[in-house]
């Protein structure tokens, strides 16, 4: 009888992303099922509202990724109404988007993913002098003395002694799958703490351009901040210089800390270049447009579909193609009016809840039936992976110079072939590679913005079509956004100047999708098959692969647990069941 393990870290609040994996006799994953166990019905909330205010609701759909949903939303309205934003506004948006990638990827690496590979407790065994020698050999980063690392070690010791180790968010310390020597564990632990300082400096771009923080402002038709070098309340010379300094800090941290750390850690985990791939199909909507958002030829990240790893044959997908871009609900807790066998394009999308799963608490999902609140988006009826690996492959296949060079450098330093990219490690490496590309791009965009301002092109808002009386009665649009986690699309239908239908297909809907009408698994489900587990009670290997996708789940519920009684359960957060 197959053993099935369940990873559902926060069952106490009914969970968000739940993975059920069946093991074969050798403790390899034979089948995996991914379920979004919490409903997200933003579409229901938006219908009937003014399209210009949709972003303010959409940004709360994922309370962490507020920026990406805001941009996708205002782009969908601009696309529907044919609004072109001014050049400077477009550059400002691109700056915010590039900053978001770098910020998000660095924080994901150090605060979620690194703890899958780095044993913080083991860092206590390190000789700080050895860590200092490693640091000095891999980068010119200033915090590199033995004394500095000894201080970090003392700090970690104090945390361990105080019994607050759960603050490091991992219950797997001491697992045999941790392979780093103590000195490297100490190095990464130090940078975990440094990344927290760094993030407070790099969010300034959003604070300045968004006018307020948290929750910056957005506007259909441009950006809400005017440019006036002589005004105290506009984008002026002193604010531009803060942004320029912030870009320097961003680039320095990526070049001197993040990239060297990835290259220092990866060699200990090369077996992860051998599994975790999944589908081999990749989709990007593309990013960094020029003022004409329909002109995909100007995108830095191209709009592509790659099928079956074939980098020689890339296709440009049309998000408005009613036949190719569809969502299916055969295994999702929704009802379609024409039945479960058909798919619907998001413009025709329906959000009718139909929960047929077991009554919580339950041991297992009924995976032969409906088992997820996520729909199954498909391109040409095929499941797709979205995210950093898709983007790097798209840039690589299109011959983007930086992407080709960086990718080859990383592969060379690991002694790995190109095929190694199609893996858990490849996904993690791709995230680092694109972070470097986008960090450097920040400087380019900034320079272009300065050039526009110098040329007197300071308009940041196009209000020609602001008044609803200037709109057609009916319109529909697509708003794209390559969110850090992958391709995000908002599809809007406007009727009588109100929202008639609004559908989001978010990156994690692609990646964490359940099976579809043809029984094809989604990206997470496919990626876990064949994963060997050293100890099924502590399925760290599964978490490594899932984390390599950077799931966008659990955004929504965050209640304070005021009882404090469930600490043990939460800290472990793991149910292991056998049937």
């Amino acid at each position, binding site marked *: 009888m197959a053993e099935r393990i369940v*990873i559902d*870290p*926060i069952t106490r*609040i009914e969970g*968000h*992303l739940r993975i059920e994996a069946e093991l074969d006799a050798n403790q390899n994953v034979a089948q995996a099922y991914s379920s979004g166990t919490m*409903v*997200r*019905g*933003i579409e*229901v*909330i938006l219908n009937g509202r003014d399209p210009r205010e949709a972003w303010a*609701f959409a940004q*709360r*759909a994922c*309370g*962490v*990724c*507020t920026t990406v949903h805001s941009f996708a939303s205002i782009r969908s309205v601009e696309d529907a109404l044919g609004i072109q934003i001014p050049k400077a506004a477009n550059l400002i948006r691109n700056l915010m988007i590039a900053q978001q990638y770098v910020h*998000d990827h660095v*924080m*994901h690496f150090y*605060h*979620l993913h690194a703890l899958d590979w780095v044993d913080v407790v083991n860092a206590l065994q390190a000789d700080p002098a050895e860590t200092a020698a490693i640091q000095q050999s891999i980068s010119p980063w200033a915090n590199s003395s033995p004394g500095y690392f000894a201080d970090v070690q003392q*700090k970690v010791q104090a945390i361990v002694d105080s019994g*607050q180790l*759960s*603050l490091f*968010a991992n*219950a*797997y310390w001491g697992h045999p799958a941790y392979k780093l020597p103590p000195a490297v564990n100490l190095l990464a632990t130090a940078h975990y703490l440094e990344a*927290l300082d760094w*993030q*407070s400096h790099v*969010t300034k771009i959003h604070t300045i351009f968004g006018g307020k923080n*948290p*929750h910056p402002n957005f506007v259909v038709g441009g950006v809400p901040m005017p440019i006036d070098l002589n005004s105290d309340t506009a984008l002026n010379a002193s604010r531009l210089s803060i942004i320029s300094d912030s870009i320097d800090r961003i680039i320095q941290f990526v070049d001197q800390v993040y990239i060297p750390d990835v290259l220092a850690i990866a060699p200990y985990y090369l077996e992860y270049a051998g599994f975790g791939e999944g589908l081999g199909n990749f989709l990007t909507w593309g990013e960094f447009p020029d003022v004409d958002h329909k002109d995909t030829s100007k995108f830095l990240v191209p709009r592509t579909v790659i099928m079956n790893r074939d980098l020689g044959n890339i296709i440009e997908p049309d998000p408005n193609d009613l036949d190719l871009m569809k969502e299916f609900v055969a295994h999702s807790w929704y009802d379609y009016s024409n039945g479960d066998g058909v798919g619907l394009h998001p413009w025709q999308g329906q959000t009718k809840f139909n929960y047929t799963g077991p009554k919580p608490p339950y041991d297992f999902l009924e995976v032969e039936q409906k088992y997820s609140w996520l729909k199954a988006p498909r391109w040409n009826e095929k499941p797709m992976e979205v995210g950093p690996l898709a983007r790097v492959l798209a840039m690589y296949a299109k011959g983007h110079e930086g992407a080709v060079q960086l990718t080859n450098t990383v592969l060379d330093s690991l002694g790995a072939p190109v095929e190694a990219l199609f893996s858990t490690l490849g996904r993690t490496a791709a995230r680092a590679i694109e972070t470097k590309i986008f960090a450097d791009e920040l400087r380019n965009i900034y320079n272009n913005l300065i050039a526009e301002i110098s040329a007197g092109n300071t308009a940041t808002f196009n209000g020609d079509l602001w008044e609803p009386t200037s709109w057609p009665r009916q319109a529909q649009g697509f708003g794209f956004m390559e969110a850090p986690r992958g391709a995000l699309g908002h599809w809007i239908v406007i009727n009588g100047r109100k929202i008639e239908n609004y559908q989001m297909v978010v990156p994690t809907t692609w990646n964490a999708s359940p099976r579809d009408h043809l029984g094809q698994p989604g990206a997470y489900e496919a990626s876990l098959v064949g994963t060997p587990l050293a100890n099924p009670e502590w399925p760290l290997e599964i*978490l490594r692969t*899932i*984390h390599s996708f*950077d*799931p*966008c*789940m*659990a*955004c*929504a*519920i*965050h*209640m*304070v*647990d*005021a*009882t404090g009684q469930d*600490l043990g359960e*939460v*800290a*472990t*957060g*793991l149910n292991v069941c056998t049937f």
Partner: protein
Amino acid sequence: MANRKIVLGLGNTLQTDEGLGVFALQALADHLGEQDQVELLDGGVLGLNLLPLVEESSHLLILDAADAQKPPGAIIELCKEDIPLYSGVKMSQHQLTFQEVLGLALIREKLPAQLHLIGAQPADLTVGYGLSETITAVIPEMVSRATAVLQSWNLL
């Protein structure tokens, strides 16, 4: 450097009472009017992005939905020492709780000197914008308790 005085409303406003901290913040803002010393900020569910705000504060009052296993609408008030700081295994960076943010501030020795939480046990967490009747009825009590805390901090 840490000298900001912040009232932080937390929660997801698209899930009914989950957003009660944000709605309570708005009610408090209406009640207090223009303020010189205190900043009233909507923190949504921004998670780790809120760490800089926490660390820049000398006084931090949090308004939030809280699960104390009490009947819906029960007010929950926690002093600094009572707020449990922890985290667990997570699937997603987005799963980070605000307690973990406070925990990180603690290990970085930057926890605000004055820290207080006023919450309520939610009645309804389904998808939707706006509060349940049960929670709407307790918002004035949250506002009056929040005002009392700010007064005790000599900020009003």
